[in-house]
């Protein structure tokens, strides 16, 4: 059975959703950063469509996480409020940039040419993911810090630029509001351009930049991820860049397998999880680079 246009087999979409959901459940991530490149590489979905479909699927996962974290009382809502305006603006900017790049033609490299949209979007994707993998790998090299529960203020929390505020829920004092607002702008732009929820980029910033314990970091920023997924989906759908059937099938498949991934993660130590997380991110980088090379013609 085939879902919509472009044709994607329904079982294939469910299997991809299940595989990404398993990884997402294991590492506590949304999996948007895996979904977009795999849709392009495995099913040949055009890049703008893969970005919009990834964002659409993310609405469901972000909504569930948001409800759960609210119930568990994890996360710092003030951080979310500061991230939100920049993030929403960034999503629109990112979607406009993607549309512009889609119609910008190709770059000629001798006898070959490569579309600008593939070069810039997939190149940025690979660089961002390489940075995130490096962060997880470097900080997963042992160290005795209890990363799940212990707060150790990081370099970003010491910046006193512009107005400052306290973040009592995570125990940080006098944090720069301007820095957080700008992080929101960058995050939103990445979300609109690359189709990632931003969790993969925001978590290292919160854990290593601000020094938040993982339990608090994963509950922070989810309101923003949900809002950026909604705005991003709306903007991309208005341009016809969302495949609702594929997004729905992957969402259902991923929801079930995420439970098994979460169960599997209980048998692993924090440092093993961190390193495996880095390896999975590198796999996504390899998929992106593979597609980039295959775009050369």
């Amino acid at each position, binding site marked *: 059975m085939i879902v919509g246009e472009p044709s994607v087999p329904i079982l294939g979409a469910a299997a991809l959703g299940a595989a990404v959901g398993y990884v997402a459940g294991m590492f*506590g991530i949304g999996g948007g950063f895996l979904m977009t490149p795999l849709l392009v590489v495995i099913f040949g979905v055009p890049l703008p469509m893969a970005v919009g479909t990834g964002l659409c699927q993310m609405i*469901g996962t972000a909504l*569930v996480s948001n409800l759960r974290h609210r119930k568990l009382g994890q996360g710092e809502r003030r951080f979310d409020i500061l991230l939100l305006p920049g993030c929403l603006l960034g999503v629109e900017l990112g979607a406009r940039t993607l549309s512009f790049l889609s119609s910008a033609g190709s770059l000629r490299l001798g006898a070959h040419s490569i579309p600008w949209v593939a070069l810039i979007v997939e190149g940025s994707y690979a660089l961002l993911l390489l940075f995130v993998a490096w962060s997880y790998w470097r900080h997963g090299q042992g160290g005795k810090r209890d990363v799940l529960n212990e707060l150790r203020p990081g370099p970003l929390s010491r910046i006193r630029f512009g107005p400052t505020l306290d973040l009592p829920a995570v125990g940080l004092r006098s944090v720069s509001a301007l820095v957080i607002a700008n992080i929101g702008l960058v995050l939103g732009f990445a979300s609109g351009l690359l189709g990632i929820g931003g969790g993969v980029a925001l978590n290292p910033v919160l854990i290593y930049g601000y020094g938040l314990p993982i339990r608090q970091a994963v509950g922070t920023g989810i309101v923003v991820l949900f809002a950026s997924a909604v705005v991003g989906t709306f903007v991309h759908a208005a341009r*016809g860049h969302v495949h609702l059937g594929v997004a*729905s099938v992957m969402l259902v498949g991923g929801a079930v397998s995420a439970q098994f991934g979460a169960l599997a993660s209980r048998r692993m130590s924090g440092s093993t999880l961190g390193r495996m997380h880095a390896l999975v991110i590198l796999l996504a980088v390899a998929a992106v680079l593979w597609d980039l090379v295959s775009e050369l013609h």
Partner: protein
Amino acid sequence: MFGAWYPIECVLVPCLIGTVMYLGFELWERRRRRKRPDNDLPVIDYLI
């Protein structure tokens, strides 16, 4: 190819699926707690 309502559909459908998923998780957890109250729940609260 797609109508004026399509962007709204694309937002509402995953919201609906997400809500059903959340309610499903809640029911599953309650059943699990009733059966094995001493056992920790899986790390699903990390799902973002």
